[in-house]
């Protein structure tokens, strides 16, 4: 499903990613763990084209969507590439001026409107599409348990609810691979549970996910594969059992020891 080959990224003189290689099968969940500054978030941002990788390859379903030397293409190409992925941010980044439902349907509506403008669909088809988007938005909100909030605005929701909306927003575009960038780090501890439950509930043979997280228990329970990153490289990769019960690398051992001592 997804293949990342030797991905590198520098910010100025600092090498943040020093050649990342891994692959994912459809329906797999990979949790990326590691201390701050290890390059976890940058990896997600490169995969989602928020940063342009310096070299390497990103392959989805056999299609190379990024390779060394690629320049960012035009808007339409970029959109195609980006839509292979969805990204849920640490800070939610909901659109404050839009209702919850509109937050979810905006991207779909905008794309339909653009198609209508280019005469690819008629006005009638546009209104049908917009109704369809609405229905789909409501269906997804039901999945994350927020049906009663469709007309509310983000500021009226708790952090946990906001993050659930953000997840719904990413799901609405049916990405091949859904990425989470520390989805619970900005939340009060008592609110992390509801978000983690929603993510866990997404586990299915159809949903492929990459989750950058500090929640080790969660990673252990939900992930099929754990990647431990340190200083821009994948230090260790394996099943939760391998990583948590029998880590090979010293760095992994130290990291886990520190983590479990603290918690």
């Amino acid at each position, binding site marked *: 499903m997804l293949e990342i080959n030797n991905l590198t990224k520098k910010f100025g003189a600092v090498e943040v990613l020093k050649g990342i290689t891994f692959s994912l099968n459809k329906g797999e969940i990979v949790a990326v763990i590691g201390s701050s500054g290890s390059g976890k978030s940058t990896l997600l941002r490169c995969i989602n084209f928020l940063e342009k990788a310096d070299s390497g390859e990103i392959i989805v379903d056999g299609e190379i969507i990024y390779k060394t030397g690629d320049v960012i293409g035009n808007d339409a190409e970029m959109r195609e590439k980006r839509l292979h992925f969805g990204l849920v941010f640490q800070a939610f980044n909901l659109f404050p001026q839009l209702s919850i439902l509109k937050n979810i349907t905006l*991207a779909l509506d*905008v794309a339909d409107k653009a198609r209508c403008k280019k005469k690819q669909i008629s006005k009638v088809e546009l209104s049908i599409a917009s109704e369809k988007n609405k229905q789909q938005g409501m269906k997804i909100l039901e999945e994350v348990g927020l049906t009663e909030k469709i007309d509310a605005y983000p500021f009226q929701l708790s952090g946990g609810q906001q993050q659930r909306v953000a997840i719904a927003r990413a799901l609405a575009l049916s990405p091949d691979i859904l990425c989470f960038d520390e989805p619970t780090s900005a939340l009060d501890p008592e609110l992390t549970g509801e978000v983690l439950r929603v993510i866990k509930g997404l586990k299915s043979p159809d949903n492929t996910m990459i989750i950058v997280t500090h929640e080790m228990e969660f990673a252990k329970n939900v992930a099929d594969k754990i990647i431990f990153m340190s200083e821009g490289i994948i230090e260790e990769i394996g099943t939760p059992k391998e990583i948590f019960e029998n880590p090979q690398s010293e760095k992994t051992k130290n990291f886990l020891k520190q983590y479990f001592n603290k918690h």
Partner: protein
Amino acid sequence: MEQFFDVTIILLQGFWTNILIFALTLLISIPLGLVVTFGSMSKFKPLAYLSKILVWIVRGTPLMLQIFIIYYIPGFLGIPASSQLTSVIIAFAVNYAFYFSEIYRGGIEGVPKGQYEAGMVLGMTKPQIFKNIILLQVAKKIVPSMSNEVITLVKDTSLASVIGLTEIIKSSTQLMSSPGILYPLFYSGIFFLVFNGIVTLGLNKIEKKFSYYN
């Protein structure tokens, strides 16, 4: 009493010019300011520098001087002179556009980067993101500063008299000349107060419109 009525009509005639300057200035400078903002935020460095220099010049010199320059310079260049009203409106529109552009820039830069990124990962193009996500947030942010400028503009319109345009202050000096009465000068203040009162109510309404979210 009859004289007071006549005076009111003459001042109203003058104030019509103030209102015209006010309305046309806003109509032109609000969109023009956005164009200047795009210029000053442009990645094309020479354009960005040029915009910054122009912002410096226009904000750094008195509006009165700019009115003089725009009104008199064409004559020296041998270009047929434009009317006083046209010159005043050009001067006001350019001046306010540059002030507005700085307010817009502050507003645009005040929108968190995450909003753009959220739009991008949802597959929206930059213009789509600006139009559908950023613009309204900027508008909410800039309403208070814009309101200040708009109220200042109402009062600034009296500067049009420096090139002889008969706005309300000039009308009242006319009445000083004949029949030689002074009270219209003070009376003209009422016109500004009433108009600014109406403008303030309108601005409050706009501000309220944006208060449905935080």
